[in-house]
């Protein structure tokens, strides 16, 4: 294992060949990934693609059927108890005690982790979270945004080195999302490693590195630019005319692999630049349409990855 300057390994997460099967359904298949310390690592993929299962395997909540790896330099198969001490895991569903108050939830966690002054730690966390005045409110009666903020506060209370956040911003309004991400970046700047799963493209673009997983397979990994470049996708954008009718026509045209309406414009894409140009040539002759070549977005790449992985599996 490679060692960083402080004697700590460079990677917070380093796993190889992780697989997990439920019944006869392969949920995660031969997954390998590396997450550098202090990075925000985005974990993307459609629903049911194995993101939650992977996160659960990383923190020892699920045992992998095969594969090996380390989390914070500790073996995920044999040292999961020790890993739990240094990992903060935020579940997809709100899973704090709804019938305990904000402060009681924080104190409970502080006690479980054996913190010296649980009551003091909880009070400090309440102030830091901006929940002052709400600390006696039952956690279950908080609004969605506040619940999420509290859940994150509970996660970072015992000063973990790694945060595993499973779709933390699902169902949260844009302002709360932005504040949440600002906090994530602050934490990363302090040296915390963050693995966060999400569906939102704008959130993916806030990550240092991303990985795309679909139907149990990790399909792409790297920085946002690397992932886009690696897809080898050529895209054109067209405006004018009726976008909906145009999209239907383009979809029926061979040589175009991807069609996505974007408001008044339609995006088309393919891996074969020549074939794509040939396919759209008749449309370019239409005077009302305005064509121009543009750079593929992350979303284009993901939709392409998703449709191709579906083709492979079904």
């Amino acid at each position, binding site marked *: 294992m490679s060692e960083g300057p402080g004697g700590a390994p460079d990677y917070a997460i380093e796993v190889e060949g992780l697989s997990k099967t439920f019944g006869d359904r392969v949920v995660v298949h031969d997954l390998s990934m590396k997450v550098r310390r202090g990075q925000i690592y985005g974990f993307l993929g459609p629903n049911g693609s194995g993101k939650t299962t992977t996160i659960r395997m990383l923190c020892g909540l699920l045992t992998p059927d095969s594969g090996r790896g380390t989390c914070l330099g500790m073996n995920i198969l044999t040292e999961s108890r*020790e890993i739990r001490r240094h990992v903060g*895991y935020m579940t997809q569903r709100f*899973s704090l005690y709804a019938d305990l108050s904000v402060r009681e939830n924080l104190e409970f966690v502080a*006690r479980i982790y054996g913190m010296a002054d649980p009551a003091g730690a909880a009070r400090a966390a309440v102030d830091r979270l901006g929940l002052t005045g709400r600390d006696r409110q039952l956690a279950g009666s908080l609004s969605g945004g506040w619940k999420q903020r509290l859940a994150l506060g509970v996660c970072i209370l015992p000063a973990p080195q790694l945060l595993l956040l499973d779709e933390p911003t699902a169902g949260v309004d844009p302002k709360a999302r932005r504040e949440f991400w600002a906090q994530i970046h602050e934490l990363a700047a302090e040296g915390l490693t963050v693995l966060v799963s999400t569906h939102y493209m704008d959130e993916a673009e806030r990550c240092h590195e991303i990985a795309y997983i679909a139907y149990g397979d990790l399909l792409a990994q790297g920085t946002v630019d690397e992932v886009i470049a690696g897809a080898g996708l050529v895209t054109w954008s067209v405006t004018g005319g009726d976008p909906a009718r145009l999209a239907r026509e383009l979809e029926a045209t061979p040589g175009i692999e991807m069609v996505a309406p974007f408001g008044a414009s339609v995006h088309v894409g393919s891996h074969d630049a020549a074939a794509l140009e040939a396919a759209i040539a008749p449309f370019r002759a239409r005077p009302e349409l305005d064509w121009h070549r543009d750079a593929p977005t992350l979303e284009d790449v993901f939709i392409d990855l998703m449709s191709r992985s579906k083709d492979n599996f079904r």
Partner: protein
Amino acid sequence: MSGPAGMFSRLTGFLTRVDAMVRKEFLQLMRDRVSFASMITIPLLQLVLFGYAINTTPRHLPTAVLAHENTSLTRSIMSAIQNTKYFTLSHLPKSEAEAEELMRSGAVLFVVEIPAGFERRARRGENPAMLVAADATDPVASGSAIATLQSLVETSVRRERFAEEGGPAGSGLEPAPPPFQIITHARYNPAAVTQLNIVPGLLGTILTMTMLIFTALSVTREIERGTMETLLAMPIRPVEIMLGKIAPYVMVGALQATMIVTAGVFLFHVPMIGSLGLLVVLTVLFILANLAIGYTFSTLAQNQLQAVQMAFMYFLPSILLSGFMFPFAGMPVWAQWLGETLPLTHYLRIVRGILLKGSTATDLSHDIAALAAIMLVAMFIAVRRFRQTLD
């Protein structure tokens, strides 16, 4: 980590985490007003219902006497029947058909038929037969009454014979209706007061019911609410979770037991012949055994509904086979074996023994050992069954 310092820090870590669980469970318990209220009202309600309403030695059962002769012995038997609290001489039918009709309509529960020539034959020592017909649809009620009736008639016959022969009771005069004395030999409960049997029994059943249901729900509730995932992702061991969840209910159980015993002593005059200290220790042991079983159910069930169903499936045999409702010795051997595996069976012997007979720990050693064994087995299964992962 090894050596005394390592041991110590591991112990404090263990205690800190158990303490965190206990505090959390207590807060949740106090906040769940309905559950908390039911823990207090269930014992009170049951105590009042069972204690005051149920009586297996009923009084004033309507009885008819069909006498085919009118002699001093017949009159003596009739007034004996009237004098006991068991029976009320309500009808004097003139014929067998009439008596039959009374019995069938439910107007009387007993018909005593004295044949003609009964007194004469009794005096000659011919041991004449007397028919007692009982409505046995409720055998518990009629059983003890029949036993009383038998000894009552026996006494009357003996008295009449002694009186005639100028024995110890008489002086040759026409015998006055004698003051009857009926001796029923019921040890430990000389007056056959049902409450003396029911109240200690209730202590066991109420503890079984509440302890079982509340712990049976504890793990499944966390799974259903999704909080188990957070709990499992934290550095806490299954044993620590179990002890933290059980401890608050030990206190609830102790509170219930105190209420029932206090009410038993002051309202129902249940004696406390044995040691109160021994009763306290063994009651805590019994509470722990029930909590361990409830917790085991909690780890076996998929959801709260299943956990409650399991608790009830366990509760029914506990009531029926433990000796709470029906005499233990009266059951077939296989049922007795089944009963031996239930904590309630052993606890009933313990609590009745201590309260009514003054039994000591030595007298009860078999039942104490059985209770402890049941508790340990249940705890072992619970910890083994507890899923440390979501697999």
